[in-house]
């Protein structure tokens, strides 16, 4: 996973949040390659790689499924997000306001803010496992741990989450810099973990090493892995949150920069992290479905450098998450200060971090995260590509002076509700849901817009 989408309310920095980015502020592709490479090598990668092993993914699924899924993600970024971002040069937030109305954006912010908090909580959980090697008596969570493992664990999460929140209160400029500085080093630590593991396993045959032992229950198919890799950042590409970032790109071709994040962070780093658990399964007899906490595995492989990596990777990604969640909450309540919003977000995040259930169900959580947020992007795609051809107005809320576009609300909520039903009661894998949900949302938006959407006076 990554830092969350750069969806920030207009109060944040005054950087063209409510206007088209002017030509003088545009950036070349280099800025985006570095940014994507850094943002997509996060602490949670240490959790996701081993989770594939725990779910019994085959070697083919991990090696080729991830390759295809990440390629599809890059293509989505390049040909949908970057295309719209460079044509309109608006933040998602402002574009949504034009389509859905300011009041509906508040609701979107609530969903966004809460999901950010759970995501940041998962990062706190991962970071807290780095404390484990220093306190051997403290029980560390495994994949089947849902509740706090004890008072020590709660204190560790509270201290780490509290520190992250305090830094977030100061803004995230410094943490963004640390994230930038640490990106190349962090990536090499992931690769170092893989080197050490391959040396210990005395084999370079990834296909054999990643093949689950006979009798392993396969809980994720080849296509499950493809769709997971494609949609674990659905909120950012299909959901259009990265409009806020890519609107600064001179050309849409900067969308290719997402390949740096996908293939370094979500391919190489995931496989490196997966190998750690393979070693613990083969040499220490760990049950792959139970797993081992990242702190212990990384400390065992590369020592203190690895523990520092876990903490920094968690910190640099959780901190902006808390900051943005705070802004989202602030945007909802008139008069609330950013500090109050950040404290609320930080408290929710600490609460989520204390319960390992969120981090241990990351494979499902990120799918649901995309399911809730991606449909909004589908509405923007309709507005950009098809609205005029289909006879519905572009930017309807703005042009009609409406504060709340019911057509958007229903087109968003109905597919999401159906998807949640499918997930909860029929066990549909969460990563299969964002795409049909987004398509259904787009179709419903067209139908509802024609039927009862806001109509500009001149339309």
């Amino acid at each position, binding site marked *: 996973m990554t830092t969350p989408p750069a969806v920030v309310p207009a109060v944040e920095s005054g950087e063209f949040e409510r206007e088209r980015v002017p030509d003088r502020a545009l950036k070349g592709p280099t800025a985006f390659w*570095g940014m994507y490479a*850094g943002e997509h090598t996060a602490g949670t990668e240490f959790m996701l790689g081993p989770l594939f092993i725990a779910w019994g993914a085959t070697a083919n699924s991990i090696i080729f499924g991830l390759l295809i899924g990440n390629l599809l993600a890059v293509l989505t970024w390049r040909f949908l997000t970057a295309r719209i971002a460079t044509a309109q040069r608006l933040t998602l937030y402002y574009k949504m306001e034009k389509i859905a109305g300011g009041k509906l954006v508040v609701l979107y912010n609530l969903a966004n803010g809460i999901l950010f908090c759970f995501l940041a909580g998962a990062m706190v959980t991962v970071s807290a496992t780095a404390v484990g090697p220093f306190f051997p008596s403290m029980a560390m969570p495994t994949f089947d741990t849902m509740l706090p493992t004890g008072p020590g664990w709660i204190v560790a999460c509270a201290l780490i989450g509290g520190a992250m929140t305090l830094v977030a209160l100061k803004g995230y*400029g410094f943490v963004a*810099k640390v*994230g930038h500085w640490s990106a190349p*080093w962090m990536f090499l630590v992931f690769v*170092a973990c893989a080197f050490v593991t391959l*040396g210990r396993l005395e084999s370079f045959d990834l296909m054999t090493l990643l093949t689950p032992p006979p009798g392993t229950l396969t809980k994720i198919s080849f296509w499950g892995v493809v769709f997971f890799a494609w949609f674990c950042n659905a909120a950012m590409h299909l959901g259009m949150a990265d409009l806020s970032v890519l609107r600064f790109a001179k050309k849409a071709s900067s969308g290719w920069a997402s390949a740096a994040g996908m293939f370094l962070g979500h391919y190489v780093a995931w496989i490196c992290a997966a190998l750690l658990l393979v070693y613990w399964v083969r040499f220490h007899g760990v049950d792959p479905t139970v797993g081992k906490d990242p702190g212990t595995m990384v400390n065992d492989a590369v020592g*203190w*450098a690895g523990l520092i990596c876990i903490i920094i990777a968690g910190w640099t990604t959780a901190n902006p998450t808390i900051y943005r969640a705070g802004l989202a909450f602030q945007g909802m309540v008139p008069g609330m200060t950013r500090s109050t919003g950040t404290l609320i977000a930080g408290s929710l995040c600490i609460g989520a971090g204390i319960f390992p259930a969120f981090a241990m169900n990351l494979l499902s959580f990120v799918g649901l995260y995309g399911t809730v947020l991606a449909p909004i992007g589908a509405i923007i795609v309709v507005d950009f590509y098809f609205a005029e051809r289909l006879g519905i107005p572009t930017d309807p809320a703005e042009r009609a002076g409406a504060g709340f576009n019911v057509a958007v609300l229903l087109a968003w909520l109905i597919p999401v509700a159906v998807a949640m039903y499918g997930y909860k009661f029929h066990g549909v894998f969460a990563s299969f849901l964002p795409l049909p949900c987004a398509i259904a949302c787009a179709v419903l938006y067209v139908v509802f817009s024609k039927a009862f959407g806001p109509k500009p006076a001149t339309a």
Partner: protein
Amino acid sequence: MQSFAKYLGLLALAATIVPPALFMFKLMPLDAMKWTMFAATFVWFATAPVWMKGSD
């Protein structure tokens, strides 16, 4: 100063990845590898702010 920091930083990155590669081929013991990586971590974070642009 900047170019010196840059070379030192690149050296630190090399010291982060070369020792694990040597360990993989049984050319370096695990403990020495871990300590080298730990030292490289400090050097990297001491030098990177000097020559790498921050991303605000």
